[in-house]
């Protein structure tokens, strides 16, 4: 059996070149392959294209958690459905980078999902009814199909996907934890190379074949999250409690 298990995160991201496109989940706070982001930050790779559903400012110290926003200085382009949080100054947090040339493409979460599917399924493009009459239609082909307006959207096929799994077996089969699943399965399917950080790596056969969400063929590299790494159950719990300490977040999350 070919070995997909890497012993550290730096090795797992060592070949990512300047200009690569990377898909990373970011639904909710810290449902993100943080250890891989940390490793990528340790490299001086630049001009990256980041594909993520939500690109929001962080409320943590770097030791507490790393959202995709940590990669901001290394980005050339950002494709996302959400950039910023209105209550926290909206898109102002990226101003410095936009001024320096960062390109931002806004889309809808559903269009992003369909474009990732189109990339995964090898399609040349899709027609979506979402975005008609909005900023999204700018510069895009419109077409009436059976009396209804649609926009042409291109597939997305990221060079890499960074995935955080609950459990991986050594063949790369993955299961996720709760709403951390979200974009990750389709990102793994659409990407050319999928790199996974897993809370636990088990032997092949230890996950019921009926319960596997991402089959191993889509997974190229796996690293086990070490104790003290980002995204462990203990760290997640700490982040939850931190929310309770911040007035404005408390209002958003419990108000």
């Amino acid at each position, binding site marked *: 059996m070919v070995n997909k298990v890497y012993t550290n995160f730096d090795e797992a991201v060592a070949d990512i070149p300047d200009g690569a496109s990377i898909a990373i989940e970011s639904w*909710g706070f810290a449902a993100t392959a943080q250890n891989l982001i940390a490793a990528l930050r340790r490299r001086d790779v630049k001009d990256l294209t980041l594909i993520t559903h939500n690109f929001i400012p962080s409320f943590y110290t770097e030791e507490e958690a790393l959202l995709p926003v940590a990669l901001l200085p290394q980005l050339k382009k950002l494709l996302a*459905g959400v950039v910023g949080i209105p209550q926290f100054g909206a898109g102002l947090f990226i*101003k410095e980078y936009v001024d320096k040339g960062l390109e931002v493409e806004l889309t809808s979460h559903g269009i992003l999902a369909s474009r990732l599917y189109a990339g995964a399924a090898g399609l040349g493009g899709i027609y979506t009814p*979402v975005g008609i009459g909005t900023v999204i239609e700018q510069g895009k082909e419109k077409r009436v199909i059976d009396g209804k307006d649609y926009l042409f959207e291109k597939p997305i096929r990221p060079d890499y996907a960074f995935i955080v799994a609950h459990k991986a077996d050594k063949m790369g089969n993955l299961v996720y934890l709760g*709403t951390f699943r979200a974009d990750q399965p*389709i990102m793994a399917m659409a990407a050319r190379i999928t790199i996974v950080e897993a809370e636990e790596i088990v032997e092949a056969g230890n996950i019921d074949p009926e319960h596997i969400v991402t089959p191993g063929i889509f997974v190229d590299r796996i690293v086990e999250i070490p104790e003290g790494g980002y995204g462990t159950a203990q760290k997640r719990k700490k982040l939850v409690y931190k929310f309770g300490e911040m007035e404005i977040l408390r209002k958003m999350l419990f108000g």
Partner: protein
Amino acid sequence: MKQKLDRNTIAMRAAKELKDGDYANLGRGLPSLCALYVPYGVVFQSENGILGYGPLVMEEDIEGAELHRVDAGGRFLTPAPGMSFFDIITSFTMISSGRFITVLGAFEVSERGDLANWNAGTDTLGGTIGGGMDLAVGAKRVITAMEHTTKEGKPKIVRECTYPLTARKCVNLIITDLAVIDVTLKGLLLREVAPGWTVKEVQALTEPKLIVAEDIKEIEL
């Protein structure tokens, strides 16, 4: 006593549109309050990949909160029997399937039912489109729960939206702190007004001409 409905009362009125067996997706803010008032059997989805969850985790129950069980706004959810987790392909297929009723907030709604709710026009660098456009296009019924006017008293129900659009001709029902208005092919049909308010007063705070329902009544909860 002539008052505008408060946010919880608007949510209560919107919740009346949801019944046992309905599937619903609630937008952030005011719409999310509907969950407190719906009858038993309404099933909620959040577009990050969860259906059929229980009530939000309250602040005092934070020790039961888990980062991996949150809605699209990051709020913590309690589990419930029959809940399921799924990916965004499944999630947005649900949303486009016409099986949801969605309650959304709005900066503006036009007389044709155009909706502007993702960008107050001030955020030129980023923006929070999120799943709102998908919900507005895909839901079988789009309800806006909103204040009738801006804080400055400017109508939010307008002839043409001035804020960036979420979707065209998508809103079916407008519920505000002053009125309940059906969006019909003939125009906006005023069905209910807040206690103490007259049709004329509501019209004065609404840009397009309202058609008044024959059976117009006071908002009931």
